[in-house]
C-alpha cells in the first residue's frame, strides 16, 4: 500500500518528448486510471513508476521517499502488461510461484503454496494450475498474469491496458473482477487505458493525459460533467460531447454560422462574463432531447440503434449534433424533428484556448 507522487516529470527518447512537466498524485489505496490516446505517454508514465525507465527530469516518490536510484525489484511494484508476459513452458502454478521463489525474498514453501492457492481461488483459475501456459485462452492468461501480481502483495499494482487484447464479454467480466479485487485488497492501483469506458467504470480517479501532460485529473463524474477543455470533452464519453461554436447574447446561446439559439441557465457568473465573446458550447448527447414544441428544428441525419437507446445525428444547417434518445423513439432518416437541450448541463468553453470557463475562474 503506498502513496505515489510524480513531480514535474519529463522524459525524452532522442528527439521525441514523451512526457513534459507531468505531475501526478495517487493516494494510498486509490484506483487511479490514466486515460489517453495511443502515444500520449501513458505507458511511459507507468514504466517510470515501475522503475523500468528513468525520468529525464523530475522526481518519483513512493510513500514520500525519492526512489530515483531504486531498481524495479526494490520498488516492490507488480506489473500486468497487455501481452500477458507469462513465462513460457511453465505451468500456471510455476508462473504464480515465480515471484515468490526469487532469492531476494524467498518464502517458506508452505507460505508459497498457501498464497498461490489463495490467488488462484480469487481469480478462479484453480482448475488450470497444472496446465501449461500456452494451452490457455487469452482471458485465462491475463488472469494468470494478474495472479502473478497479487501473490506478491506488492505496494502498488501497475496495469498497462491489461484488458485491451480480450474480447468484449470477457473485458466486461474482468473489469468488474479487477475492481472488486482492488476493493478487497485495498491496494493502490495505477491503471493505464485508452478506453474511456474502463476509466469511467473502474477509476476512483481519472487522469486524462494528452501530449505528455495531465490535462485534467478528478473523479470520473467531474471529468464527464465538467471537462476542463474541449479535448477532454471530446475524448471522454461515447458518443462524445457535442461542441458547437456560438456566442452568448442576452443569456441565450446563439450559434454562429447556423443561426439557431437556445436558452441557458441564466445568471451564471461565467455566463455574464462571457457575453459577446466567441465561445464553444458543449452539451452531452443525453442532455439533448426531442420535443414537439421545442425551439429548434433539425433533420435526422443518421440513426444508430444500440438496443437500450438510439443515437441520432441531427443536422441543423451545416452543423450536426448527437442526441441519445430512448430506443422506442420512432424516427426515420431525413425526418424533421424539434429539439431542445438541458440548459443546466451546458458547458462553456473559450473558443481560442478551448478552456472551460468555469475552470478558468
Amino acid at each position, binding site marked *: 500500500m503506498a502513496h505515489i507522487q510524480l513531480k514535474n516529470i519529463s522524459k525524452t527518447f532522442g528527439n521525441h518528448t514523451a512526457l513534459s512537466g507531468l505531475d501526478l498524485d495517487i493516494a494510498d489505496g486509490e484506483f487511479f486510471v490514466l486515460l489517453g490516446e495511443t502515444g500520449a505517454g501513458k505507458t511511459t508514465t507507468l514504466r517510470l513508476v515501475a522503475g523500468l525507465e528513468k525520468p529525464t527530469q523530475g522526481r518519483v516518490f513512493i510513500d514520500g521517499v525519492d526512489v530515483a536510484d531504486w531498481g*524495479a525489484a526494490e520498488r516492490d511494484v507488480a506489473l500486468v502488461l497487455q501481452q500477458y*508476459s507469462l513465462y513460457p513452458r511453465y505451468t500456471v502454478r510455476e508462473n504464480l510461484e515465480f515471484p515468490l521463489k526469487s532469492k531476494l525474498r524467498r518464502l517458506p514453501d508452505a507460505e508459497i503454496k498457501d498464497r498461490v492457492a489463495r490467488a488462484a481461488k480469487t481469480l478462479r483459475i484453480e482448475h488450470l494450475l497444472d496446465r501449461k501456459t500456452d494451452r490457455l485462452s487469452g482471458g485465462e492468461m491475463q488472469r494468470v498474469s494478474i495472479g502473478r501480481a497479487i501473490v506478491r502483495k506488492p505496494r502498488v499494482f501497475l496495469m498497462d491496458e491489461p484488458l485491451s487484447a480480450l474480447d468484449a464479454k470477457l473485458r466486461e467480466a474482468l473489469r468488474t473482477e479487477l475492481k472488486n479485487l482492488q476493493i478487497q485488497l485495498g491496494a493502490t492501483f495505477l491503471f493505464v487505458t485508452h478506453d474511456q469506458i474502463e476509466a469511467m467504470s473502474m477509476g476512483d480517479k481519472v487522469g486524462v493525459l494528452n501530449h505528455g501532460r495531465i490535462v485534467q485529473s478528478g473523479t470520473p463524474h467531474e471529468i464527464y460533467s465538467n471537462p476542463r477543455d474541449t479535448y477532454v470533452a471530446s475524448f471522454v464519453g461515447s458518443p462524445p460531447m457535442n461542441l458547437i461554436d456560438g456566442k452568448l447574447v442576452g443569456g441565450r446561446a446563439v450559434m454562429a454560422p447556423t443561426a439557431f439559439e437556445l436558452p441557458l441557465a441564466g445568471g451564471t457568473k461565467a455566463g455574464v462574463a462571457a457575453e459577446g465573446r466567441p465561445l464553444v458550447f458543449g452539451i452531452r448527447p443525453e442532455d439533448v432531447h426531442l420535443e414537439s414544441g421545442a425551439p429548434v428544428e433539425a433533420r435526422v441525419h443518421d440513426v444508430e440503434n444500440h438496443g437500450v437507446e438510439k443515437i441520432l445525428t441531427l443536422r441543423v444547417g451545416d452543423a450536426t449534433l448527437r442526441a441519445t434518445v430512448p430506443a422506442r423513439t420512432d424516427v426515420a432518416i431525413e425526418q424533421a424533428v424539434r429539439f431542445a437541450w438541458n440548459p443546466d448541463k451546458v458547458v462553456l468553453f473559450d473558443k481560442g484556448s478551448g478552456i472551460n470557463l468555469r475552470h478558468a475562474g
Partner: protein
Amino acid sequence: MATSMITTLDQSSRAAARGFSDISIRNLFIIPTILFLIVFNIFPLIYSLGYSFTDFRASTNAPANFVGLKNYRDLLNDPYVWSNFAITAKYVIISVAGQLFVGFGVAMLLNRDIPLKGLLTTLLLLPMMLSMAVVGLFWKLLYDPSFGIINYALGLGTFEWLADPKMALYAVALTDIWMWSPFVMLLSLAGLSAVPKHLYEAAAIDRAGPFYTFFRITLPLVAPILMIAVIFRTMEAFKTFDLAYILTSQPTTELISIRLYKMAFQEWQTGRSCALAYIVLIMVLAITNIYVKYLNKVKER
C-alpha cells in the same frame, strides 16, 4: 492470381514462344540435379553397401569374393577401430561443448545495444567462411613451437601443441572451436533476439536475479535453437577429416574418418573400408535421431 502465376507459363514469354511448357521447364531444372544425385551419391552409396560384404581391393585386378558379414565382424572386434571411435567421441564432446560455450557466450555479449554491432558480428563470422584446409594450414603455423605466434603471445616457450600426443587432440579441437563457434553464435543470436523483452521486464519486476532469469527464461527459450546448433555441429565434428589430417598425424588424433581414409586409400582394403563407412553412417544417423527426438521434446515443453 498469384498461384496461377506460379503454375502456368506466361503466354507472351520467350520461353513459351520457343515451345516450352511449364512442365518441360520444371524437368529441365530438376532432372539434371536428380541425375547428379543418383550418379554421385545414391549409386555409390548402394554400390559400396555391396562391396562391404566382399574382400574387394581396388588396387588389384582380383575379383571380389563374397565374404558375408566378415568385414563387419572383424571391424567390430578390432580394438584399434574402437580406440579410433573413442578418440572421435572425445573430440566431438570437447569440440561441440567448446563451441556451444564460446558461441552462446559471445551471443549473450552481443545481444544488447552496442556500437558497431553489425560490423562486429560480421567480423566474428569470418572464421567459419574459410576453407577447412586453409584454417588447418594457418593454425599449423600458429601452433608452431619455434616461431608460432601462440607460444610467443602466451609466453609458452617451445611448448609442443601438435607434437605432444596428449595435447594434439585438444589443439585440433581448439582450432575447430575457433572456426565453428561463430555458427553457434549466429543461431544463438537469432534465438536470443526472439525472447520477448517484456519477459525480462516482468522478471525484473518479479525480483528475479540475473542467474534465475537466465536459467528460467533465457535458456529454456533458446534451448530448441541451441539443440539445432548441437545437431549440426555433432554431425560435422563426427565426420571431421581435413582439419585433423592437416594439423597433425599423431595416433592420438586418428579420428574415425582418418582411419577410414587410411584403410581405403593407403591399405586399399576397399571392401573393409566400405563396411566401416557404413558403421559410421549408422552411428551418425543414430546420434542425430536421438537428438531430434530430444529436440522435439524440448520444443513441446
